[in-house]
């Protein structure tokens, strides 16, 4: 059974590698403060931050700015600790951004700006918004 033992050892080590790499590559949900700390320490890992778009006193979204060529957008997000940060997203503004209840940004800080590679928008679910007539 020697050959099978060697194969067994290989399989176990591949499986362990998989588990370790999953643990290593898994992202995490953090606040702006933690994300900023990570960036300062030189940790370039992409992380998730949950928050909402900034609103002014009248309840209108504020701080949303499309780049002059409209191919990128930046906005101000407030995280769950009420910290405000500027977020830059290198894609045209998603049409649903202004309807979102909650925003999840995935990326990392570069200097004072959070550069998002991906944005997940949580829009009011269809049942809440819908009226019957």
């Amino acid at each position, binding site marked *: 059974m020697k050959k099978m033992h060697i194969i067994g050892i290989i399989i176990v080590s591949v499986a362990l590698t998989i588990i370790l790499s999953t643990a290593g590559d898994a992202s995490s949900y953090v606040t702006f403060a933690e994300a900023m700390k990570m960036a300062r320490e030189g940790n370039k890992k992409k992380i998730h931050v949950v928050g909402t778009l900034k609103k002014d006193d009248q309840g209108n979204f504020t701080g949303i700015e499309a780049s002059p060529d409209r191919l990128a957008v930046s906005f101000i997000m407030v995280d769950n600790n009420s910290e405000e940060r500027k977020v830059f997203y290198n894609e045209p503004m998603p049409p649903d951004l202004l309807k979102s209840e909650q925003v999840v940004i995935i990326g990392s800080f570069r200097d004072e700006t959070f550069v998002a590679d991906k944005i997940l928008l949580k829009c009011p679910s269809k049942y809440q918004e819908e009226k*019957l*007539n």
Partner: protein
Amino acid sequence: MHLFTGNLGHLFVIVSFVSSLFAFFSYTKSIGSVDDIKSGKWKNNGRFFFILHGIATAGVVSVLFYIIGNNYFEYHYAWSHSSKYLPVYYKIAAFWEGQEGSFLLWALWHVIIGLVLIRYSKTWEGPVMTIFCLVQAFLISMVLGIMIFDYKIGSSPFLLLRDVMEDPIFAINPEFLPADGTGLNPLLQNYWMVIHPPTLFLGFALTIVPFAYAVGSLWMKQYEGWVRATIPWAIITTGILGIGILMGAYWAYETLNFGGYWNWDPVENAVYVPWLLAVASLHSMVIFHKKGTSLRLIYILVISTFVLILYSTFLTRSGILGNTSVHSFTDLGLSGQLLVYLFVFTLVAVILLIIRWKQIPAPARELSSYSGEFWIILGILTLCLAGFQVIIPTSIPVYSAILKFFGMESGIAPPADQIQFYSRFQIWFAAALLILSGTAQSFWWKRINSKNLFSEISIPVTIALVAAIVMMVIFRISSVPYILLLTAGLYAAVSNGIILIKAAGKKFSFSGGTLAHIGLAFMIIGILTSSGYSFVISQNTTGMMYSKSFPDEINKENLLLFLNEPRQMGKYQLTYEGKKVKAKGVKGYIARNSVASTSDPRRVIAKVDILEGKEVKVRKGDTLEINPENTYYSVYYESDDGLNFRLYPRLQENPNMGNVVSPSIRKTVLQDIYTHVTVVANEERVWSEPYLEEVEVGSSFHIKDHVAEFTGMERMEEVEGTELGENDVAVKARVRILGHQTDFYVEPVYLIKGNNAGQIPAENLDFGVKIGIDKITPASNSFTFSISTSDKDYIILKAVVKPLINILWLGTLILVAGVAVALARRLMEFRK
């Protein structure tokens, strides 16, 4: 209100549930009886109840179809998944859009498979149908919709709208009927939605057959005879499940805008992993059939496949994936029930396997590395590891939920770039599988020993290496994993090809396996070229920096196109030519400008004659029927080599579900050009402050750097929306703005009615101008226009080239053909 229909449906659900329990009980009795006559009687009882269950399930399905088909919007299911204007085939699709309908579809497949088993499974009927009926009871319980001690069992599809929605209108008028349903999600309005879910659920449903045989055989302590009967089923299972997955991939590529055919989304992963295991279990059965070994492995693999199907059902339907997936079902609060379903079958199977483990025959024999089965087992292990690598990260939301249950916040999230994360591993597994498939086939079909090893293996290896080097040079491949994968793919294709010609070619019915492996090799090479070497051609490398704080250039992957203003993109010159619509009965696209809206958004009137070729298809003034949600954006591609074409990416606007974009693909033999809009100009524009400009009739002026001509004026006989009296005057000014390719016309009106004067401004959204007549000065024969401007109509698009993607689709077809041949052979064997 059609209350009877829903009550009938609910009655069918209850009959279906209860009869599946009775059938389960009867079949348990039949296998438990030692007495043959008694056992036969219980078996007949079981058949009776299963057929009753089948009729009742078909009844549930028919009633739900009837409700959707007849637009009974008093029912929540019809209201939330269908709408009046859906064509019949989308009404069918609406049936399985929701969780309840898709459970029913699944259960219906089980009924059909169950009937086939009753007819053909002979002595295995008792144990196999016992498991079957228990699974059915669990599935039907998901749509039961009854309360037991405050605990909801299942979610009924026959709930009335007024019982689900808390809307004040029902207090005033309980009989209230909404005028229309909210429709099928626009993402899903595609013919794939009609054929993909039934195929996938058939694949899901089929995984129960090997499982039921395996558990039944453990129960009956008859460990060997079942495998032969199961092989044809295992082939159909892997085939159908694979086709279902590929249909989903092609659908995602062609219509949905996920950017590609595979995105390692949790929902995709949740079917990919059981499929890998199904493939592994099929291979283990083939070894056993020929050599009589690895029986224990078969049990492990077959049970794992089914458990993973249950797990994937739990993942996609419990709402646990939440934000991590773009396409899981909405949560119906069935998590508890789904967990019970998962645990019951996992525990029953695993405990039974442990109890019987020692009894399962396992000849102690060292596997020779010169034998085919040694290499197949290596392949099986690789498949399992590949599945393991996918399921571990996909389950991250589950770990978080478990930790939360114990009061801990984990804060752990799925990998930020899923595609890169999974591909990095899967590429090695794919390469290993290809090498193993080529090698295993060689050892399987030929007698190879240490003497002829070199001569047998060297031919395919040499051909593959030469071909790989040629391709590396031509396509300038430099990444090590890519080179390995390409070489492995070529090796698998060549070595299987040689076997196909030499050995299996003599007897065509034996060539199923080799064909399937050649198909797989083509598919993986196609995935490598189309995904590994896909490139964005709408790349914007202007060297522009977004802000001073980022020193690096930001490459933008989108291109902004103003109406009729050509822009260069790679070797193509692109021109956005305006919005188009599609009308019923008219081929091709019609300019949105050439039809006028009416009060019914679905009907428009042609403003000009519409041609089809040279023939006038629609006369001016005719009414056309359109789907007002769909707009197509015509983009003209011109290239230096004279290959010009138009693409029409689509945007679907649904008031309830938001905007959905679909790509338009230019398909050629060597590559696909995949184009979709990312953003379009808003119909509600931001207008500049109006400014005044006095212009003499017949002279020119400027608007937004374009020359505009005030070509003339005319008195109008009638003005829409106002009655003109005898002394009233209406004057229309004709303004033409010269564009690069087409001109734009604006015709504002000035109205004197009684003692009042007023302006009716006119706008041209394509050009982005609104002109009103502020004042008419007869003395100087001039008009004073009040002009405000906005953007011209524009779109932002993204274009990606996918090289050699046709190799992937070709490989798919070869694979399917291989599976079909293998199935035909095994069925013939089974008949003997």
